[in-house]
């Protein structure tokens, strides 16, 4: 049964197609990295050897430098396993291309290979890329938008529900959440749409929306009881989604509005 759950997750998440999402489960962990992750100590040793011997021409990050090619995207360096391809190149040099020979012991060659693999994997593992500074907006304009055009203040208050919000979430998370705070596993105060279902008989059921599609609707009422209904023309379904205003606002935001509101929200500590 676990397999089935994982598969339905994959179904929903897999449409990025060429861009597998971070959440896609794969035996062994990170879906993007299918080769052995090098030992961290070897990478550290290899970096020192590389910077000292190779950095001048290939750059200290191995992305290419003064005359030496990029080794992060180098087919030979990618083909390498523990120095088996770069070792002979180091030993013999590339006389035709101005690269001298380097007579390094095998363990140092392997350390360089470990460093290059770590550089390659850092480029490959896009889900681990660091997001740079996102707080670039105008705080005052953000406050104006919050209380004016954005109408955020009709539901939120900087001294009420948003007091200390910048302590709960970092700026990157806040940027995403201010646009649309979709329910997440670690939510402090989860938000659930509410629903009222009224069958032809007239007795209405209200509660937290559990399920809704074109054919069925289900809710859990205040006493915790679960109710489900087949939808037809005689069944009235009224959904109150507290996030509906966020969805509406998505069509109106400019990038400046978004950056300004974020600059304001990060002050709510």
């Amino acid at each position, binding site marked *: 049964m676990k397999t089935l759950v994982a*598969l339905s997750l994959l179904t929903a998440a897999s449409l990025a197609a*060429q*861009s597998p999402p971070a959440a896609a489960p794969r035996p062994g962990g990170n879906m993007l990295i299918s080769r052995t992750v090098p030992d961290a100590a070897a990478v550290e040793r290899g970096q020192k050897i590389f910077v000292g011997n190779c950095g001048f021409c290939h750059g200290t990050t191995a992305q290419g430098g003064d005359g030496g090619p990029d080794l992060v995207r180098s087919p030979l360096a990618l*083909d390498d396993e523990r120095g088996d391809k770069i070792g002979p190149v180091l030993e013999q040099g590339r006389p035709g291309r101005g690269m001298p020979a380097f007579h390094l012991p095998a363990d140092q060659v392997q350390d360089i290979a470990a460093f290059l693999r770590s550089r390659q994997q850092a480029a490959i593992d896009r889900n681990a890329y660091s997001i740079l*500074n*996102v707080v670039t907006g105008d705080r005052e304009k953000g406050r104006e938008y919050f209380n004016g055009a954005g109408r955020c203040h009709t539901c939120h208050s900087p001294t009420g529900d948003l007091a200390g919000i910048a302590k709960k979430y970092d700026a990157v998370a806040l940027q995403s959440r201010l646009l649309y705070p979709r329910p997440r596993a670690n939510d402090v105060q989860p938000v659930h749409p509410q629903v009222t279902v009224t069958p032809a008989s007239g007795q209405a059921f209200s509660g937290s929306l559990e399920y809704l*599609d074109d054919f069925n609707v289900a809710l859990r009422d205040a006493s915790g009881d679960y109710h489900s209904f087949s939808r037809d023309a005689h069944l009235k379904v009224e959904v109150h989604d507290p996030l509906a205003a*966020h969805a509406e606002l998505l069509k109106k935001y400019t990038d400046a509005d978004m950056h300004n509101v974020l600059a304001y929200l990060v002050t709510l500590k």
Partner: protein
Amino acid sequence: MRLKLATLALVGSGLSAQSLDPALLLKPPTDTWPTYNGDYSGRRFSPLAHINSSNVTAMTLAWEYRLDPGTGTLTSSIKSTPLEVNGVLYFTLPDHAWAVDARTGRQIWHYQWESHGGIHIGSRGFGMYGSWLYFETPDNYLISLNAKDGTERWHVEIADVKQEYFSTPAPIVIRNHIIVGVGGDSLDVPGYLESRDPETGQLQWRWNTTPRKGEAGAETWPNPEAMEHGGGMTWVPGTYDPELNLYYLGTGNPNPVMAGQGRKGDNLWTCSIVALNPDTGKLAWYFQASPHDTHDWDAAETPVLIDGQVDGRPRKLLAQSSRNGYFFVLDRTNGKNILSKPFIELNWSKGLDAKGQPIGNPDKEPKADGTFVIPALGGAANWPSPSFDPETGLFYVNASSSYSLYYLTDTGDKPEGYGGRDSGVYSTLALKAIDYRTGQIRWTHEYNRGGGSIGILTTAGKLLFTGDPSGNFVVYDPANGKILWHAHLIGNISNGPMTYELDGRQYVVVGAGDTLYGFTLLQ
């Protein structure tokens, strides 16, 4: 003449009960579904009408087959559209292939490949030539199996997994050409399409999706290094016009994916619809759906061939609902644009250039502090198959109105890999029926939740089969979007639905997660 040659080759490879008559590749699919899209057109329209709008309420489950991977593991949902040939269904998952009885869903054989790695995101299925089946693996092997028993005949490597390629498409067979594509945009490798020999797997030709130094198109890149690391993957099967002898393909996004500063220019022939001669791999024409893309919007979606009318004259057309949110109609004889119109509300385009290609707004490229972009990275549409119904004249697509934040994470002169990240914000999904003559949306069925695109089939029974994002398999009236039938499956449908007729019964087959379902009429 071409057909005679193909038939001779078939005799040479040994006829059997499991052999495909190549003439069937040139006909609309009825008792046979011999290629990824059912036929070469990519319309995913079946002339079958046994199941139709007057009796579809009596459609019921005939069988189901839950994948048995033997000693292996399942790493993807069913994305493969099964082939159906002589009463047998053939389909694949990464590293796995199956044959099941098309009447009962009973497993006939299972084949497992010992993997050397690669991203195991999906496998779109088989191509077939005579008695031989062909599929691609995440570690980039083209494998030929005997349709009779699933035994391996040979395997050849078509790309190097160590360079971060992985392969997902279903090979397309045109005469004696096995056309194979590759994928992988983790580390800026160049894309290509190849034709392989059906008997040996040897290379017949290779077409590079980016130019090399001095070649045409090089002027759209800043330097040779950028184009040789420029991406442009070939991961969705294309379509074919036998009269024009042109193979149509949508190419993937350029690399580095989100950081465009090291590849200034239009970056041909990435994010393009191209026409190639399948005998030589020579480019006949191109149309670029997203010049200088920085949003991962592959233009790989199926180029659907429509024999239609424009201004009262019969025309050979090609239509694509592209990942970037535009619906394009081209003249497929020469690639000239006839129509470019968004099928969702998008926010990244400043209009069209003289060739009908969208002009990207530089303000909507990824930025260090985040840019808010519609559609999201997964796009308004994606690889799941759209459908064109010649009887309604409508093109159907499950369209995602989606929102993402795009971040530039590498602001240097020479970024590598993605050079950026995205963060999905919100989406809604809707089934849309588009008039190919105007781009107007004739009807829309809004779902009450978001998600990515979902595959579609239409039939002469005046039916449209697709899934919703809540796990239902649903039949609509293609004329107006009225719901006629539904069943809740184990998960969202994950491949394109297909259909065939055997012994006077019509079956509709669809995959959801790890289960393949066969439906037919109650008897």
